[in-house]
């Protein structure tokens, strides 16, 4: 299988869906000729024209609202939100409007749109360009939330998102745009709500999202060298969440760490850990451990920024403690 970058994978997904369905279009800042600052959309405007790859002014609430209205009336907009941090600007249109319209209308109106945006720190972009804010939207009923962890997922989840009749928010890891992964030439979709077992293992389960999947795979490598067998699971979508797959793994290994790049407190690790605690309680040898980003705004300086996100070493260290029983006695 050929290897392509996450960036190319997203580009292909959009191109394929735009070819398949004329109602699909993209709107956002500098999406056309510039192909976004990350160059993810390069070439699309050449193929589809400026009617379907629409440059907007810097009006996030405005073009999000326009997308909602467009989606309600027969098109399938893909909203390009340059940085995940700007989601704060579109919350009203996304959460008060898009998320609720189908329900409030008693099922009569649909809002089939995709917000594609990103997450991830350690790019030295400071506090307003480095956040991982997926927990916020996951909390709002009516929104689906996808977190691709490689080029393969980025393509398959994007295609599924575009075909979904509900508003979907996809957070790409902006540090991974140039990372390559095997992606089939043939068309494929990745269904929502189906977790992916990245690596099987028997001693401990590492549940990881987005950027943290590769961190946990690296941790699993470290652990493997020490004779500890770690299973790495990627839920791929957090709404819907493949609870069954997570529970199954937890029951098998009896030890779980949930790793995510959002702030730890009141983030998604609490939800996932709680569900496992609730539903696999008597299979657990230790409490489910959580590792999120530090509860601090993301600092600019490299000297501090790198401390704020979970690393493979830190995950491995915690896994080691859990497996050896050290954590058990602490609790």
């Amino acid at each position, binding site marked *: 299988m050929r290897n392509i970058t996450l960036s190319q994978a997203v580009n292909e997904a959009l191109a394929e869906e735009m070819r398949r369905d004329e*109602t699909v*279009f993209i709107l956002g800042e500098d999406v056309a000729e510039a192909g976004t600052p990350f160059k993810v959309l390069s070439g699309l405007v050449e193929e589809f024209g400026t*009617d379907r790859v*629409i440059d*907007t*002014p810097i*009006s996030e*609430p*405005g*073009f*999000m*609202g*326009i*997308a*909602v*209205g*467009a*989606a*309600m*009336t*027969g*098109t399938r*907009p893909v909203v390009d939100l340059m940085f995940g941090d700007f989601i704060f600007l579109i919350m*009203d*249109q996304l959460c*008060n*409007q898009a998320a609720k*319209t*189908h*329900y*409030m*209308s*008693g*099922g*009569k*109106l*649909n809002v*089939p749109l995709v917000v594609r945006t990103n997450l991830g720190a350690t790019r030295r972009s400071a506090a307003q360009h480095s956040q991982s804010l997926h927990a916020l939207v996951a909390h709002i*009923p*009516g929104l*689906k939330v996808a977190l691709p962890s490689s080029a393969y997922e980025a393509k398959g989840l994007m295609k599924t998102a575009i075909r*979904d*009749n*509900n508003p979907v928010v996809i957070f790409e890891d902006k540090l991974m745009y140039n990372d390559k992964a095997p992606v089939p030439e043939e068309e494929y979709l990745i269904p929502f709500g189906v977790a992916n077992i990245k690596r099987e293992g028997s001693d401990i389960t590492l549940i990881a999202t987005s950027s943290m999947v590769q961190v946990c795979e690296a941790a699993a490598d470290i652990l493997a060298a020490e004779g500890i067998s770690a299973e790495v699971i990627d839920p791929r979508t957090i709404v*819907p969440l493949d609870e069954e797959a997570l529970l199954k793994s937890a029951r098998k290994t009896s030890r779980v760490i949930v790793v995510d790049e959002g702030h730890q407190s009141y983030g998604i690790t609490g939800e996932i850990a709680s569900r496992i605690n609730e539903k696999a309680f008597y299979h657990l040898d230790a409490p489910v451990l959580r590792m999120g980003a530090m509860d601090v705004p993301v600092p600019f300086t490299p000297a501090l920024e790198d401390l704020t996100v979970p690393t493979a070493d830190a995950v491995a260290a915690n896994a080691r403690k859990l497996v050896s029983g050290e954590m058990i006695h602490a609790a």
Partner: protein
Amino acid sequence: MSPAKKKTNTEDYLRMYRQMVRIRSFEDNANQLYLSAKMPGLTHMYSGEEAVAVGICEALTDNDRITSTHRGHGHCVAKGAEFKEMFCELLGKEEGYCRGKGGSMHIADQSHGNLGANAIVGGSMGIATGAALTSKYLGRDDVAVCFFGDGATAQGLMYEAMNMAALWKLPVIYACENNGYSEYTKTEEIAAGSIIARAQAFGIEAHQVDGQDVLAVNALAQRLVDRARKGEGPFFIELMTYRYHGHHVGDINREYYRSKEEERDWKENRDPIIRFRSWLVEEGLASEAEIEAINAEVKKDAAEAVEYALNAKYPDPSEVDMHVFTDVKHALA
């Protein structure tokens, strides 16, 4: 009454009259339901502003879209909705337009192109503009009308939407219902400068019109809708109007923000229904008897619809987690 060109077709005038009476009648009943504690929650009455919704919606087809506001019953009726489904919605009944899930503040009527009332002031500026984008994108000639109040002009979203509508020449008409108040505050206290100049600054052609004169409103709307269909949009209209009731049904003691004299003046001297009725009679387009017959018929329709809605059934409890997503019957199953 404005010197609008008389249509040869009297039917149009009588339909406009009837639609205004239907709105007034709907609101009188809704108010009654509230006062007799039969309606859950609260609501905002459109009475007094009928000529705005009717004048504009009569210039539209079912394919044209509107977005509405918290004060949305008038738009809903004017765009073609039925009393029965509307009262059912207000009372939270299964047969309501939204199966009781939306209520007064979210009433929508997809079949007639009403994309829904909105409880976020200014919240539909983008939505209406997006509906216009769809029209242009799909090569159709539908237009979209965004109704909103003077208070909503304070929401930044409006300027973002207008900018894009102007840049992309979208077939959208921004209809600002300036009823002089934003809740309990006079418009001049919350709006600096000139409302229509704000639209003009974006290169949008803007008009001010007497919102109590249904013919003036309709004539302007016809003209702008036609031009918007041809790609000459967007447009902006400021409609000078007045709400008769309080901001919401419970807003009874309101003399601290507006006087009874002012209210009386608008009701007695500028009522859109009374004015239009006199004109119809003066012009010989309808007799007093015909007018009374329309009034009576509407009144009866409304009473029957209320009765029906009061006896209609609530949605089944199992509906609570339906319609969260389109593809999942029960989200929490």
